[in-house]
Each structure stands twice: as C-alpha cells, then as structure tokens.
C-alpha cells in the first residue's frame, strides 16, 4: 500500500512500490493534469512538487514519496498557503495567462511546476540561472515568453 498526500488529500493506493508516481496519478487517481512526455526524466512534462521541490514524476517511484506532500498542477493555486513559499503559486499561473505562454499547452503543466519551484528557491534569478534551472522541453517554442514571464515575476 502506497500512501501520500496529493494536493492536501491523503491517498492510499494498492500499487507496486516501484510504480512511477506519474502513472499512479494518471491511471490510478485519474488526475490527468500531470503529463507523460518521455518516461525518462528528459522533458519535464511530468513535473510535480514533492514537499515543494520539483521532481519528474515519470521516474519517481511511489515508494520514494511515501507519506510526503505532492502538489500537482491541479492543486498549485491552492498550495500557496501550505508548504510552498515563493511568489504565490497562483501568480505563476496568472503570469502564464498574462504573457499568453501556452501554445499546444501539453508541456505547460510541467513547465509551470518547474518554474514555480525554481522561483520559490531563487526569487530573482539571472538569465544564466534560468537557463540552468529550467530544462523542460517545449516543442512549440514558448521559451521566449517563459523567460519574459519569469523576469516579470522576479520583478514583481
């Protein structure tokens, strides 16, 4: 039995200890906001927060998050008051709307989770730090707008 907290709700699942968190969320809990992109932690589409830190859920077994707090894109806006410090999690999502960032949008759950965790630990990053810290793939090429939004959030 795997037990962890997803967006403030405790979940107990009768699944294998090595089932990746991604597939527990998607196929067992029906929470489809977290996306499958590559399965090998290369693209970041599956990024969630574990205790506020961005992790790639496609290679994170449920056993590794036993008893821990998971935040997914569905719970990000509500997580601001909880374990996630930083610029206000809803603020990142609002910036994504203000800057009209998503195109196909498929990578953006992961991108937003990566950026919100990144900004929580580094509220005023340099361009080089953005380059090193945000490594998610966006096939539509939203990077220029993502960078612009990160700068705006840093200055807010």
């Amino acid at each position, binding site marked *: 039995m795997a037990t962890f907290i997803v967006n403030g709700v405790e979940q107990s699942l009768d*699944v*294998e200890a090595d*089932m*990746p968190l*991604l*597939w527990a969320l*998607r*196929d*067992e809990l*029906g*929470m*489809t*906001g*977290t*996306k*499958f*992109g*590559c*399965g*090998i932690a*290369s*693209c970041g*589409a599956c990024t969630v927060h574990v205790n506020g830190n961005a992790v790639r859920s496609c290679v994170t077994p449920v056993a590794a998050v036993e008893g821990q707090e998971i935040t*997914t*894109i*569905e719970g*990000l*806006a509500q997580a601001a008051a909880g374990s996630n410090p930083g610029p206000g999690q809803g603020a990142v*999502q609002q910036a*994504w*709307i203000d800057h*009209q*960032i*998503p*195109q*196909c*949008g*498929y*990578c*953006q*759950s992961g991108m*937003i989770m990566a950026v919100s965790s990144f900004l929580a630990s580094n509220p005023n990053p340099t361009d080089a730090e*953005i*380059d*090193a810290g*945000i*490594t*998610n*793939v*966006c*096939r*539509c*090429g*939203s*990077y*220029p*707008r*993502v*960078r612009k939004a990160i700068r705006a959030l840093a200055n807010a």
Partner: protein
Amino acid sequence: MKMNRRRFLLAGTAAGGALLIGYAATRPSRHRRANADLVQGDERFVTSFIKIAPNNQITLYIPHSEMGQGIHTALAMMAADELDANWEEVNIEQAPAIDLFANGDLVKGFAGEFGVPNFLMGLVNVSAQAVAEIGNLQITGGSSSVRYTGEHAMRVAGAAAREMLLETAAERWDVELSELSTELGHVQHNASGSSASYGELVADAALREPPEQPRLKERAQFNIMGKAISRNDIPAKVDGSALYGLDAHSEDMLYAAIRLAPVFGSKLVAVDPGAALAQRGVERIVELEDSVAVVADNYWRAKRALALVSTEWEQTENDAISSADIDVRFSQELANSDGSEDKEVGDAERALEEAADVIEASYSVPYLAHAPMEPMNCTVHIKGDTADMWTSTQDALGMRGRVASQAGLPEEAVRFHQTYCGGGFGRRLPFNWNVIDHATLIAKQFDVPVKTIFSREDDMQQDYYRPAVKNNFKAAFDEDNNVLVWHSRFTGPIQVPGAAHIPYGIANQSIRVVDGDTHVPIAAWRSVDHSQQTFFIESFIDEIAHRAGKNPYQLRRELLQEHPRHRAVLEVAAEAAGYGQNLPQGHALGLAVQESFGSVVAEVAEVSMGVDNQPIVHKVTCAIDCGWAVNPDTVEAQIKSGIIFGLSAALYGEITIDNGRVRQGNFPDYEMVRMATSPEIDVHIIESGEELGGLGEPATPPIAAAVTNAIYILTGQRVRDLPIKNHDFTRSNPVAGV
C-alpha cells in the same frame, strides 16, 4: 443532394473588394440541418458555425483543431467581427466531428493556390467512407485555417448572419434596411430609438435563407480583428484542466502498450509471452499483423509486461539498409536519372556550356521525426454496433472514418470526442494512421475503453518522417560575375509544388526531381518541402554571392527586383538586425528569405562560435509579410514557435536508419532547443494588405540557412548537410570583409 449541399459558390468580388466565397452562402444552408439535428431549447443556428441564444449568448463552432496556434480564438474573432457581436458574449466551441462542420474550404483554397496537394489527394480514394470525399474534410494543416476557413467561411458566416438579423428587424419594425445599424450584438434603428438584441431576433432570423453575397467589412471597420485578444484556450492550459487525447479516462479503462515491427513493412511471425500474462493487472496479449500489444489495467503495468514478451519478425529486403545506403541510392539516382521537370526557364544546359565559370554543390538533409510533446495515443470503446473514440488529431472527421473502417462500423456510429492536441506539426494529419489503426484493432477485442499509447520511443521509431532529400546544384557566371544559371536536381517526392522554385531573377533555370522513395514512411512535417528546399536554396544563393564577390544581402536584393514583398521583408529584417553595422566581437549575421503558404519571411540570425566550437544563436530577427494580422499576438507566437522548431532541426535533428530501423529512441538522441539554447527573437509584422498568408509554418524554413550562412562567415565552412551538430568547426578560417 449531398453534392449540392457542399457546392461552393464563387460569388466574385463585392463592391468593397472582398472576395465572397464559402459555406455560408451554400444553399440550402446547413444551418437548417444544424437546428434540426443539434439544437434543443430556444437557441438557433442562424448560419453555419453560429448559434445565438435568446439571452444573446453567441456560440461559435470552430471546425479546426486547437493545437496551440490559437485557431479557436482567431476564427471566432473573424466571425464575431463580421457579426458585430459583443466579444464578451461570445462562447467558443470546438465544432463536433460530423460532416455538418466539415472545413472543405481549405481544400478549395489549396486548389486555387496550386491544385489539391498530394497530402490530401489520396483521401479521395481512401475508402467508401463518406468522410473521404474531397471537400468534406475537417483538417487542420497547411497553415490554412485563418486564410481559407477564416476568410472564406467564418467571416462570410458572420456577415451573412448579421444581414439576416438586420432583415428580421427591418421586417419586424417595418422600416428600411438602410436605416438600421448593428453594434455589440444589437440591431438599432436610430430614427425611432428602437433596439433589439440578436437574441430577440434569432428565432425569426433563423427561418431566413442566408444571403448569397454578404458584404464583408473593410479593414477600417474591424472592431475585433487586428487586436491582440487573449486566447480562450489558455486558462485551462495553466490549471491542468485542459484535456488532450491522452487524458481520456474512465474507471473501467484498459491500457495497451505496443511493440511494432521495427523494420517498416515487416510482419509478426511469432510471439513468446514469457511471464507477461502472469504480471499483475495484465488482461491479454493481442497479436496483430505487424505488432504485439499487452493490455493491462495501467499503462505502466502494460509497458513493463511488454518488455517480457519476445517477438520474431519476418525478414524483409530492407533489414540491412542504413542511412549511408540511402544516401548512396540518392546519389546514384541523381547521377543516372534525368528525372522529371519541376521548372525550366531559358536554356540552362546551353548556358552552362557557354559560361565563364561554374560552381557545383551537393546538399542533403536527413529524415526528421515530428516529436510532438503529447505522445501518440488513441482510445477506442467499441460497444457492439457503436463506438466512442478519443484522440488528439489534426483531422477529426478522417480519424473517425478510419476508426469506423477498422471497426467495421458505419461512420455515423462512431462518436468522436475532440480534445486539444498536444502538438501536431503534421504527425496528426491523414495517413498517420498507425496509432489509430492499432488502437481500434486492439479495442475490438474488449468491451471497455482501451487506450493505446505509443511511448516516446514508439513514436520516434514509428513516425511518418520528414523526407530525407539530396539536392545537387550548379550555378554559372559570365565574365562579370553575373549569375546566369540555376541548376537544381533533387530527390523527391514533391509534397508541396513549387518549394524548389526560386524567386531570384536568374535567366536560365533547370529544376528537376528524381525518385527518392525508400522503405521509410514519410509525411508532411511542419512547412513540408520548404523545410528542406529553403535550406538548400538560401544556402546556395549565399554561395553564389560569395563566389561572385558580392554581399549576400545586396545580391539577393538585386535578384529580387520582381518580388517587392521579398525585398521589403529582407530590408526590414536586415535593418532591424543591424546588418552592415558593427557587431560584438566574434558575431556574424546570416540571412535567408522565403515565401511559403502565402507569407513572405526573412530571417537574420546573429551567431557566434562557442568554446565547444559549435554555434551559439544569440538572436533571430524576423520580418513577415502575412498580408495582415488577425491577432498580432498569436502571429508573433507562431513566428517564434516556427523559428525554434526549425532551429531544433537545423542544430540537432536527424533520424538515421540502421538495419532498416530508426536508431533514435528518445529526446536525448533527438535533442531540441531548450531554454538555454533558445535565442532572443525579434518579430516584425509587415501589413502589406495583401491576402492573408499562413502562419503556422512559414517561419520554420528560413532559419537553417540563416544560421549556416552566418557560420560560413565565422568559420569559412559551408554547411551543406544538416544537422549542424555533426560538423567539426575546430579549424576555422573566418571570411573577411562581409
């Protein structure tokens, strides 16, 4: 009857100069059928695509797939503006995948451009399915939605609906039509002060026939078009609620992981399930002609069990083929075949013989995968004599027809649940059937929904690829270094006619295509043939300039005398990029210009060589003449998107063949531009007022040559094959004085 409904009226030119053509004017109007089939309560379709409720809420049905290009918003803007709707009261809906909402205007648009393109032509013969009839498609591709469906259907539908509402008010109030005006979803009679909302008029308006020639607005009259309006799909894409095909979910759903024949065209000979069936959650192993699938109650369980299955595949004549073999075959074909004519001007062969100087160069580009972020998937639930399906697609009607044919059901018995598309780029167009076919054949064995997912590796290795192409050039000069001949021989096929043609005023041109068929399946890839040909053309014209001792920018301008739009974008981009000005030490500018899908684009890349002797693209300056911009913010987004997509291919992209199969598997083998390698991009939209051009694709073709032309200046090395990462630039010899 059917033909009549789909007939297009070419209504000619209105007084205002707007071209009137489209579904809104077909008779009998499809809105009657929409009201009969789709409406409950007091709402009414007043023309195709437009439904109005008594409370004045207006619903616009968009017959295209939203895959990030902002098409739902852009097309709604076009209809709403002509309708004089209040944008605050406009709701945007994906049109259902039923033939009532076909978007065959697109095909007619292409037909006017260069004949029905090959990638659509085959649909005519696909099957007895009604969906396969040309003109009855629901395709999103070819950078066509705004310029064809938008111009020829949505605007016309909006204008026709407005006229029907006006006529209704005139009749109700017994006044002259000319005394009425419309604003923000209301008809007004200024003389009497009467006003009625569209919602109050719609019940009667819907009984009228749409006018045959509704009058479209002049640009000065636009209230919504031309504005940077926020896209309607974005809020759902930032909170996880946007649904893609992969997100279809139900409690009783099963999941299929699949292994397809690694060599294209091979067949399954034998399967040893090993311990797969004993694994937790595994329901069944499904053997198909060219594949085997494990079906389980969770995708991860299915995938893990599939790894335990052993498979034996039929041998094929292609089992030993490699990319090197394909390159040799292309070279032999180019050497031995005269090919067929693509374009001939003057007498290139004779001019070559008489020339003072001749240069030759051979270019090539590899196969490319589409690699959309959402892996390929399709969920099918067959329930006896009906079925439900979910998939992300650029062709909802076509995919519905495909599932129907594979399931042995009539098309109408299949209900298509449209979702957002996690990237398309051509991978989700017609003929990319594999995931659809396999998902249907697997689901036929179950009475619950089965979701078939291609892993990233499956998608990379079972794509329909951007064709590899080899192109041999010759150019000839007279004693004064004037270029006299453009001689091009390339491997086909030609997917989009004209991509190998040049805008340059060269007196003698011979452009011919030879057979480039291999066992590797191919399809349209963002910008189709332009992605290869623009790299070739804009590189070789640069070679010509350098050989002639001319500045590449000035030579292009000289040879583009007959193409003012090309010259204009080139000049705007060059000036904005600081071409000819001082650059930071070690930086150089390369440029390229190309017309595709009705838009003319120039790009200038500012490049330096990094410590690893690979190029760093610092900035790209782009000027585009797309006629005019319906939504400037999405235009800018599409340009940046197209450039980054093309840059990924130029720097890193290659699909290579080993032992008949694709070598690359996942993103590390097929790298793409990420944040750290994404350049600053400066976009200049030129509103020439010409007809609307496409936007999804035209920014992709020029970037490769813009970058490699800069690399030539920096290193003296001419990159004649992609990707750039395969080149060794350690021995640089910068070109002086450019």
